[in-house]
Each structure stands twice: as structure tokens, then as C-alpha cells.
């Protein structure tokens, strides 16, 4: 449904809730109402919230798997190259390719790469670090890290309309509603 897209003067509207239940229900309602560009904020992870947002799969596991494979393979490859190709040495009468001995470093490399790529992947996908965010302008939002729950519908959403959306949000019975400036 294409509206004449006015460049919105604000980032979006944010509604404050007291409990996770309210938040999840509100989010579900908003999703049902057709809002997509929105996000739910909570002081602790709530699976239902992301489900309600229609966000079911994260790509983090894939990143971790890739990192792990890369680490393990390169680890073993390095050792094989060093001991068999680059600089073969007779060490205690053992064969150049003493593969059982190479397992341990390969394993550790797997773990290392998997872990690091996972961490960096997670932050990257989350677009962190992001020291500035419009939401931080909202006074009461600071309690999202303590005990409050928020639903923010962004102005960028095609269905967003400052009047309708506000009216819709009031229907969710939030503790408060606020405009989020840029």
C-alpha cells in the first residue's frame, strides 16, 4: 500500500510497558496491524518478542560454523605444510606427517576461530557498536536496561502515520507513549 512518503520529522513512536507479557502482546498486535519496521526493547531476552516481530532465524550459527571450519582446516594445513613440505625434520624417528600430533592444535584453532568469528559476527549483525541512537533521546527509555519494556514503531515504516499510529498505540494501553526525535 504505497502512500505519498513524506520524509518523517521523527524517528518513530515508542510505547512503554510494565511487563514482558504486555510487550509481547503489543508487539503481536502491531505486527497484525501490518507494522514491520518496529522493534521491541526489554531488559532481558524474551524469545516471544522476537517471534512476534517475525524475526525467527539469526545467521550467527552459520558464521560460527564457517569460522570453525576455516580455523580447523587452516590449522591442520599449516602444520602439514610446515612438517611435510616447508621444512621436514626427523624428530625422534617419527614420520614427517605425524598427523595424530597435529590434531590438538587443529582443534584449538577450530574453537578459536569459531568463537571469535561468532562474537564479531554477532556485533556486526546487530550493527554494534552504535554509541548514538535516537531512542536514547527518550527520557524513560533509559529504564529499558532496568525494568521497563518498550515497543517502538519507526517512521520509516510504510504504514506509519503519525496520527493513526499514535491512536493505534494508545489502543495497546501502554504506560506512556512518546515521540522519538532523530
Amino acid at each position, binding site marked *: 500500500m504505497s502512500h505519498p512518503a513524506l520524509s518523517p520529522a521523527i524517528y518513530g513512536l515508542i510505547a512503554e510497558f510494565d511487563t514482558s507479557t504486555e510487550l509481547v502482546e503489543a508487539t503481536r498486535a502491531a505486527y497484525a496491524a501490518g507494522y514491520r519496521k518496529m522493534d521491541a526493547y526489554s531488559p532481558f531476552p524474551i524469545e516471544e518478542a522476537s517471534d512476534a516481530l517475525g524475526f525467527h532465524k539469526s545467521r550467527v550459527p552459520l558464521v560460527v560454523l564457517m569460522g570453525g571450519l576455516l580455523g580447523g582446516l587452516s590449522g591442520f594445513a599449516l602444520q602439514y605444510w610446515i612438517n611435510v613440505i616447508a621444512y621436514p*625434520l*626427523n*624428530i*625422534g*624417528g617419527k614420520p614427517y606427517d*605425524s598427523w*595424530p600430533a597435529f590434531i590438538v592444535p587443529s582443534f584449538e584453532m577450530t574453537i578459536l576461530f569459531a568463537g571469535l568469528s561468532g562474537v564479531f559476527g554477532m556485533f556486526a549483525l546487530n550493527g554494534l557498536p552504535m554509541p548514538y541512537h535516537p531512542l536514547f533521546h527518550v527520557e524513560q527509555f533509559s529504564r529499558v536496561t532496568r525494568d521497563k519494556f518498550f515497543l517502538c514503531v519507526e517512521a520509516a515504516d510504510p504504514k506509519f502515520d503519525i496520527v493513526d499510529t499514535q491512536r493505534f498505540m494508545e489502543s495497546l494501553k501502554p504506560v506512556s507513549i512518546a515521540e522519538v526525535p532523530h
Partner: protein
Amino acid sequence: MIFDNLTRRMEKESPNKSEAICPGKLELAEVKEKLALAKSGPQYWRSLEELAQTDGFYEMMHREFPRQASVWPEASSRRDFLKLMSASLALAGLSACVKQPVEPIVPYVRQPDEMVLGKPLFFASAMPFGAYATPVLVESHEGRPTKIEGNPDHPASLGGSDVFAQASILDMYDPDRSQTITYRGGLSTWSEFAAAIKGPLNSQRAMNGNGLRILSRPVSSPTMASLMDAVQATYPESKWVQYEPVNRDNVRAGSQLAFGQFVETRYNLDKADIILSLDGDFLSSGFPGFLSYARSFAARRNPDLKEKMSRFYSIESTPTNTGGKADHHLPVRASEVEQLTRAIAASLGAGGGETAKPEHQKVVAALVKDLQAHKGAAVVIPGDNQTPAVHALAHAMNQALGAVGNTVIYTDTVEAKPTMQVAAMQELVADMTAGKVDLLIILGGNPVYEAPADFEFAKAMDKVLLRVQYGLYKDETYDHVHWHVNGTHYLEQWGDSRAFDGTVSLTQPLVAPLYDGKSPYEFIFSLVGSSEVAGYTIVRDYWQGTMTGGDFDAAWRKAVHDGFFAKTAFPAKSVSARGGIPAPTPAPTAGGKGGAPDMEVIFRRDAMIYDGSRANNAWLQETPKPVSNLCWDNAVLISPTTAKKRGLATGDVIEIDVNGRKVNGPIWPQPGHPNDAITVFLGYGRTKGGRVADGVGFDAYQIRTSDAQWTASGKITRVGSGYGFADPQGFQYIDYSDLPKGTEPLKNRHIIRKATLEDFIKNPNFAHEQEEPVPPELTLYTTTSGEPLYRYTELKWGMTIDMNSCIGCKTCIVACQAENNIPVVGKEQTMRGRQMQWLRVDVYYEGGTENPAMFYQPVPCQQCENAPCEVVCPVGATVHSTEGLNDMVYNRCVGTRYCSNNCPYKVRRFNFLLWQDWTTPQYKMMRNPEVSIRSRGVMEKCTYCIQRITQGRLAAEKATPPRSVTDGEVVTACQQACPAGAIVFGNLNDKESRVSRIKAQPRNYSLLEDLNTRPRTTYLAVVRNPNPELESEPS
């Protein structure tokens, strides 16, 4: 700071300091003149030293570098010495350190194929030791002597060498050596001395020299003997006294008793089926003829000779490595040896009398039977420290056994003018005390320290008007002399001396005197002639004089090249022992105030530092003694039984009281030591011996009197405890121990494999019976059809060590130390288990503490093919070479010590601290340039002397056409040094090489075989040849 020490020192040493710091001016013209002279030809090198010798130089030096100059001998500032040397050279507008002697010295060029020695230049020479010459080859790098080897062509060496020869290189570079001539402790010069001594000498001439006494070590040098005659001629009434603390008076007295004259006794052990030693330590460094005896003894101990293998009975007091080789070993007190000897002699019909103690009779009977069964092929060897009677009886027995001419040969004495030394010394002391002596010249030796305690030499000597000391060290005697003339080391001088068989051996200098010392020849010559004649001239002229006709130059050249005059060995001399039994010598004088003596005190020379003259040699100090494996100490040896009886434990300090003379020493219970006796070793407890010698051990000379030189009786009382010993070997017992009851027996490890000759003949394969073969499939890695993973196709180095030949003399250790620049660590670090010697000789006991059998096992790196050390090194600092060596890459080592932990043989050595001396210039000159110096934090170990292997390989590759390394072309330092030839090294791919053939023998086994490390170093099992009638006796 240094200056303070210095002033204190000088105050101590010289009453009037002004003399020390030379007054006067330096005439520049003088230096110019000297320099001009310096610029001319071969004189050049020497004249630098002469320059450094002029008064002018000294004055200037004192103004330019007052500290360094006066501080020379000061401990705190060794390195100043070379600063100064280079300063003197700089003054002369030159810069060099190595100094060649001017006379033509002849390199050892003829190198038999089977013996290309690893290094560029070798010179034959001879080390005078006591009266006897030890023939050596000296290895020289760019004019710096760096290593001593035996002289293979010389009958008295046959290529072998002893600890003293090996260590003598360190003596030469010893920074503690006396480096200056001094008068009353102040610096002086040779010219000043020569001038100053003129007067006294002239007055002596006037009075026929009856106030002149010269005290020297015994002399065998023909040249020196001629000088003695010259002195005698110039000063008819003067007396020349020869004395050494470890003297052979008993031997001389014995031959007097037997033959009425002094004769030299020589043994042919290669002809001996039965050897009886009466306290005769003929397999230890320092025993005249040791090198040749070791070789021939070992040759006859080869069990492959079957019944021709010799049998060795040893009756001895102090356990020695010689006794450890015996098939039958009978430990008795030194004083009991004579009685036993009489008993044996009696039953051989060679005088004697008395009967053996009941407990000995069985052995004596069997022994006598054995001896008689081998008439003509038996030999009796008495010990230098045994009574004259024992020697006389030994002569008689040898005669009765028809040994003379076969296994025993009598010749003229090696000493030019043999005397009864203690008596001569006594006379000298008497004269001095009586004030009859005006001028005493001490030519070597350290009488104040080593003369019999009852002589109180120092006191007597102080009565002499003018006292001159010639010597290598400013030692205990130095404090009592007016003049001190610093001497030369044998590597710095020309000389000659006779080997045990009389062969005249020449000493040629490898380097001009480091500290511009005078050789003894030059010194004595200056008493009868000019003070500026070179030692070379003196020695050469003497020999030229003896030559009648013939081309002397050629003969001389050959002699210098070979290191000896051919065919100068003494011919056999026919003497016959007089009949008549010498009267029993009285038992050692009882006495000691308060209570009768209850303990026999046996005096012995130390196996490593001998009479104390070697005490400042750190290599010898740190080399474990042959039997006890102690180092850095002279423990009081006592039998464990007696120790227990007296409630003494290891490390208890006892006071030894011999007739009121007392000394304290720590005790070490020594298995195999006779009961109710203690052994004390001479040579320790130095007070002015140098930085190494001082304060180590206790001084046994203090209780050694002229009437009881070797055996005394005294009392012991415990006065302390908790003395710590440095004993590098952790544990010496194979079959009994202080391990708790029921502990896994150590003999299950099959470290020492042994059998009697009978069993060996029955079952030559005895050494491999208890082995469990290692299943090859016990590996993570599949080997292609049982083929070894690595086939060493080109060269494949291996080593065998024949434990039957090894006599435990430890020469190999010192040789290794010299060859591989191995540092010394000192007593404390050795106690911590941080000794650095790459090669160790383990001594194992078996059969109780009373009279255990002893086994010597040299353990270098085993060069395992499956080296456990390599696998665990994180940086690949130890890896395998294509020739199968377990290479150690010092520069790559980060020092995790994992390799050592994983080495089952524990042959790796770690630089826990910085032990290498990087500063002392002398040591820089001494080191083997082929071997890198390891610094702190690095692991090191035996490399089969890889530098020698490389040289051999290079030589082979350079040859046209290129050949492969021939057998014997590469010789490891330990192998080369071994007097018994127990160590064989070579290429295992060459089936004809000695090492391959030896490894093929059934006696060949490898240590800890069941670990599947596949060592390249293997051992030949021990075979002893006990008398079947005495099976009960421990073999």
C-alpha cells in the same frame, strides 16, 4: 675500589710500598730504540715482551695505568691483564695477542691414515709429571694451544692420556698463575733479579757454595741433570735436594733392600695371566707407566681371549678404580698388607714368613696356587705407598715366579739422581735450622705447604738469609721468600724428561711465555752462567753435546717432530734379589696423647689434584673421584661398618688426631673400605693456591709426618655434622641400598650386565637373556613393512663402550670438557645437581658394603634413533641429523628443559645460570674455536664431537676423488683420550669398521633397551674372571 684492595694487598705483601710503585722516568728514546729493534724480523714478537720488560716500560706503565699495573695478580681484575698487554702492544704500535716462540718448532705433519686428528696443527711434546714424562700431542689453533692428546707413537702413551695431561691446558691459561717477578712483594724484573743475585752467588762461589741449597722436584731431565752437575762443579759444597710430597721413597728403599741399589721396575701386563696387586694403584693417573699399563691390562681383559683372559687379584686398603677391576678384591688395612705379603711370599718360597689371618687364608691359598700355576706369566705389583718390605718381597716373589724378564723388567732409574727424599729434606731442614744455609733456591714445589709437618719447614726456612722461589704460583711458600721468579708452563718452554721406560721425551713450546716467565733451565743456567741464554739453546746444546757424529740437525728435527728420541728407552738390567728376609717393619708408631690410637690413618694422593699442585685446576676439582664420585672435596673415607660402630653418618665432621697433630675433616662412608681405618687425601686445604684451590677441603699435610708418610695411627672424635658433599652420582647401589624394604629391586633394570668367564664361554649371549623384545607394532605410526622409517644410508655414526676395558679413570670426562668448552659450576651448584660435564662415569656397587664389586659405566648422550628428547622440544632445538646424530641447536633453544625431563639417561646439561666466563682473556685464548660457547638458559649435551665429524667428512669430500670417511678418521675426544681403548666410534654402515664389528658381538647391549629408544651408543657387558675355587668371593 680496586685501588683500595690493591693498596691493602701491597701493604700486606711488601713492607716498603715505594718499591712496588716504581719511581724514575721513562726515556722516550729508550722506547723508540726498543721499537726500532722491534721492527726487525723474527725477533719482533719477542721483543714486545722484552719491551714490556724494560724498567722504562714499567715506570711509564705505572704512570699511565697505575692501577692495572700493580693490580695484575689481584683477583678482582683479571681482565685488566690483557688490557695492559694490549696497551704494551699499542705502545709498540702493534696489535696482536698470540705469541709464537722464535725457535723453529716442528708441527706434527705425518698423520697415519687410521688417525687423522680432527684439527689443523698438532705438535708432539711431553708433560713432565713428577720425574716422569707424559708424552702428549698438543693441538694448536692459530698459535694457541687448545687441547692435549696422547702421543700415539710414544711407547709411554700409545695415544692415551691421563686426567693431568688433559687438564694441563687449563693450568697454562690459569689467570691465577704468577705473572711477575717480585722482590719482597713488589714488582721487579728479570734483569734486576739477575743483578741482585750476582752478589750472593759470588760469595757462595767463594765459600764453595756450602751455604747454597737448591730444592727441586725429582729430576729425570738429562739436560737438567747436566745443569745439576754444573751447579755441583761451580758450588762443590752446595746441596741439591729433590723432594715431592707424593714421593716414591718406599719404592727406592724396597729396591735397596732387594738389590742393594736403585732400580726401576717395569711391568709387561700384556704377558701377565695372573696379576696380584699389593695396594698397587697401577690403573690410576699418576702411577708411572699408567698409560701403557692401562692399555696392556685392558688388552688382556678381553673375554674373547677365553682362558687367556687375565685374572686380577687385588689386595688393597683404600678402594681405588684399580681394585674395582679386580676379579678378587681383598680390602685390608694398609698396615695389614705387609703381613699378608709375607704370608704369600712365604708360601711362594720367597722369604717372608708369618701366616695370613684365618679369614684371609682361603684366598691366599687359592691365590698362591694360581700364581704357581702360571709361573713366568704372573706378576706382583706393590703400591708406592706400601712399606719397603712389601716392595722387597714383591721383587723376591716376582723372581720366584719367574716373572723377571717376562712380566717384570728392571732398568736403570728414570730419575737422574735418585735419592731418599724425606731424608734429604730432613737434612736440609736441619741445616737451615742450624743457620748453615745462606741462599735457598726453591725450584718448583711448595715446601711450606707440603713438607712433612714435623719438619716445620717454614720456621726453618725463615732462618735463611736470602730465599728465592721459582714457580708458577705465588703460593704458601711465596710468603716466606724474598725473590719470586715466575716460571713457565711446560707448554711455554723447551725441555726434556724421561718417560717411565726411560725414553727421552722432548718438550717444545707451543707459545711464548704468556707472562714472560723463565723456564727452569734458563733459571738454573743463570746461576752458573749467563742469565740471558734461551732455554732452547740450553736443551739443544746439551743434546748436540751428547751426539757423536751423525747429522744432529736431522736427528734433532726428528726428535722434536716425534716428541722423543727413538731408542732411548732403558734396556733391561739384570739384577737379582738378595736372599734373606727383610726384618718386619714395625707397626705404625702408636701414640697420641690421652688414650691409645684406635684408628689407622691412611694417606693417599688425590686422584684428581694429586699432591695439591693441581688444586687450582677447576676441571680436575670438578671431575668426580674415580670411586666415590665426589668432587670439590677430600672426604675422610671410612668403611660403613666402622662408621656405624662409631655412630658416624655421612657429613659428620671428625677431628683426626695423629700424635697430637689435629685436623678436622668430613667423613664419607665408602663401601669396600677396610674397617678400623680412615683414608685422608692430600692436596686440599690450600690457603694461597689460587681462587679455585683456596678453602676447598682440609689440609691433610698437617698430620702427615716424616716417620709416617703413608700410614699412621691416630684417634678420631666427632666434632660436627651436616657437612654437604658434592656427589654428582645420585645413587650407586645396584642390589642393596637404603631404599625401603620390599622396594622394586633396581637390578631388574639390567643397567649392568655381567657374567663370569665360565658362564660367558658357556653362554656368550648372557647379556640378552632378560630382555623383552619391543614389539614394533607398538607405534601410532604405521611403518612400511617393518622397515625403519629413516634409513641412514650415507654415514651412520655409532659408539661402543667396553665396560670390561673401562678402568674408571675419568680421563674421558676431562677430555670432553676441554674439547667442548664445557664450563665448571663449582661445588654449590654441583650439590644442587647442576654439574655440566657432558660425559659422566657411573660407578655401581654390588654385594654389600664390606667388599662390593664395582662397575664403571661411562654415559655420554646415547644418540637414540627414537630420541624422546626431540619429540618434546617445542621449538625443534634438538633434531635428528641425516647421520643419525641427535643434534642440539644451541641458538634455537629457549630452555624449557622438557628434553632433559624426557631423557631416560639424563645426559642433558642445562645452563641454569651464566657459567661461561666471557671476560677472562686467557680463557678466550684457550677455548676450542670449533665449538660454540653456550650461554645462560640453554640446554647442551654430548654431540659425538660433531665438530670432529664435520672435519672428517669435509676431508673425505675434499679428497680427489671424493671418498667416504674411513674407519678411524673421526675420533671423539673421549675415545682419543681413553688410555684403555674402551671407547670405539665409527660408521655403522661400514660393516668392516671396528665399531660395527664390536656391535656384532654378543656382549653388546644398549641401556634401557625396553624403552625402544634405539641408542647408537651401546655397551659391552662385563665379564669377570674369578678363580673357580673362590666362587664364594664376590667377583
